[in-house]
């Protein structure tokens, strides 16, 4: 049962958003359908974080902003230590960090071969 990275498409104007808003950022519409954002997201920027938040063990934590084919962007952890702007990545489900001893899962981004 594979999880898919999804955005929210406004039923009025068609704009796709991530994360979810209760009203569309373009038309203030209030109905949405969940849509897949696709594979092959492009890396726009990144950082290697050395001052780590709680529950992440090993520096650096590599974080980046990726852009999906349809234009929607997302921020998340990268599984590579050698990011390059413009590289292609895909969302993969995994453990993000611990918070108060609870393991938190979500999507990270892994380089496409």
């Amino acid at each position, binding site marked *: 049962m594979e999880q898919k990275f999804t955005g929210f498409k406004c039923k009025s104007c068609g704009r796709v*958003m*991530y*994360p979810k808003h209760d009203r569309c*950022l373009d038309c203030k519409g209030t109905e949405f359908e969940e849509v897949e954002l696709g594979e092959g997201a492009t890396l*726009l*920027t*990144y*950082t*290697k*974080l*050395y*001052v*780590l*938040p*709680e529950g*992440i063990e090993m520096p*650096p*934590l590599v*974080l*980046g*902003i990726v852009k999906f084919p349809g234009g929607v*962007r*997302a*921020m*998340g*952890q990268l599984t590579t230590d050698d990011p390059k*702007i413009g590289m292609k990545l895909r969302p993969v489900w995994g453990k*993000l*960090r611990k*918070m108060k001893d609870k393991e*938190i899962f*979500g999507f990270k981004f892994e380089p496409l071969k």
Partner: protein
Amino acid sequence: MRDVAIIGCGMTKFGRLEGKDLMDLLAEASLRAIDDAGAGERDFDSVYVGNMMAGELVHQTAVASALVDRINLIPAGAERVENGPASGASAVKNGFFAVSSGASDLVLVAGGEKMTAADTDVIGDLVSTMTHPTAEYVHGVTLPAMAAMLTRLYMERYGVTERHLAMVAVKNHANALKNPYAHLHRECTIEGAMSSIMIADPLRLYYACPISDGAAAVVLCPLEKANEFTDKPVRIAGFGHASDVQTLQEREDPAVLKSVQLASQQAFKMAKLEPNDIDVVETHDAFEILEIVQSEDAGFFEKGKGHLAVEKGVTALNGKLPINPSGGLKAKGHPVGATGVAQIVELVWQLRGEAGERQVKNPKRGFACNFGGFGNNTVIHILERGW
């Protein structure tokens, strides 16, 4: 809408202030501002306290009520205003409304934060709780991480280099050396900055502000009554306040601080002024890249050219448009709730010609940019001489 004047201001030294708690700091800055206004005998109508995290950091809530009691501003109505790191400017804005609406004739606005008593980890985590809970926070996103990603966009797109960040830090440290209220009183060199430890590649320690305690306060009244208190009232000529989407990635362009653009445009429109009418600027350089980005998005420099202004010395104390004569958040310090109020205190001192060694030459108008979240909720003030 009545014109509003700042008739008194004061602040504590910023820094690691051992033995002083939040209420000590708020009281000290407030009493200095009240003294400065010569309003010690007067009854105040309203009190606003800018503070982000008293409950979280020092385990005290309802600090506005506590301040009123502590320095006897009874029976003034009081409230705390919180807008993340822009809590101070938001408090000033609401003090402005209280006076401009006609409801209040004498208002105290104080901002303060006691940060150094908490662990650095705790502070870092708390500040991160401003980010989007599911789209940012849980992923480990921190404010330095966001600033680093913005920096890298600027490097890629506009040719900003690490040296430019260092130049901003060097300038602000130099200014802070002339400011007795500043937290950091030490010279910073390009080489020193560029060899400091990496916190969020490409950001090193010296491209970010320290953790500080401190407070600042101003006294407001209608401009028409200001001459009862002072010969040099400073008029709040304009303000602007605008928000943007919360996450960095969802912004129209992640390299543009649209809330800074809109709030600045509002403030200039209200003041009937343009960027080139401004003589002195305080920006929110919690990270040095932000001074560059804000200086562009506020309208002082063309987009992508802010770093060149730094390079040419335009923003130096003796430049054409001095930015952060106080030392900025980088070197004056950033006790979060105090910052927006302290920016205004610095501008008042500059306009009055009371800024000592760091005095900018004969400024008529000042501009302050205080921003909440990571730039998604910005408050701008434009001040001008009211005499």
